[in-house]
């Protein structure tokens, strides 16, 4: 079993707001992140897959295919977007880093054929990141 991690960067804006909360509650819980005009981050994504090394190719997974899947399923949707307004997952969910990691897992997991998805890590800033292992 070998684990391979591929990184990718995307930039997006978001804000935190729950329509079920009062304006005061939203402001109290989300603070500066509640600004309805949004704010942005450079997100760093790390996708880790695991599998046995193919004896012929020496690869766990074809990196080009993994890159293509990450580009198509994740970056094309999230990069340079306002997450709340342009990404379907976040029309009802708050685009926290936790929910972004879960959404990325759900986008990638069904598309990976040769290696199994092990972990999705999303850095919102260099000091803050979330790991999701597909657990309920």
């Amino acid at each position, binding site marked *: 079993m*070998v*684990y*391979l991690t591929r*990184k990718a960067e995307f930039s997006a804006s978001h804000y935190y707001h729950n329509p079920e909360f009062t304006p005061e509650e939203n402001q109290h819980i989300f603070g500066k992140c509640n600004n309805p005009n949004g704010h942005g981050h450079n997100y760093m994504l790390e996708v880790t897959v695991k599998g046995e090394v193919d004896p012929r*190719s*020496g690869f766990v997974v074809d990196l080009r295919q993994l890159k293509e899947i990450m580009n198509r399923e994740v970056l094309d949707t999230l990069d340079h977007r306002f997450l709340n307004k342009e990404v379907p997952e976040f029309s009802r969910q708050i685009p926290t880093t936790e929910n972004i990691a879960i959404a990325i897992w759900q986008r990638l997991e069904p598309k990976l054929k040769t290696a199994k998805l092990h*972990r999705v890590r999303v850095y919102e800033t260099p000091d803050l990141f979330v790991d999701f292992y597909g657990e309920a």
Partner: protein
Amino acid sequence: MKAHLSRRYLFSASHRLHNDAMSAEENRATYSKCNNPHGHGHNYTLEVTVSGPVDERTGMVCNLVDLDQFVEREVLERFDHQNLNSLSEFSSTVPTTENLCEQIYDILQRGFRYAHLEKVRLEETMMNSFEYAGGRELLK
């Protein structure tokens, strides 16, 4: 009290990804630019993680000098500034970073006696890395 210790090392090497059992077309399709007959190079970052009880007298899992000396002698002198394809380890396996990661794990597993080897992590570029724990699942 058990603790994990990780130490990073740098080395540079060249390789060419090519399998003699494949046709020229299949090699190009599988390895793309990495199949260039003249090879190409990387600055690899090696991260070795060992674990063990913290020694009450020294406060250490293992002495970093022992780990550094072992890695220097057995790993870096072997692979740094080498063409990986020319080494006996890769006479019949393709020097992908997956296979290099397993080779380095095996060297440490066989010879390093001062702490338990947890895993070897190898960065091929800033964007790619590989981890091997002797076939064990990684801790979450």
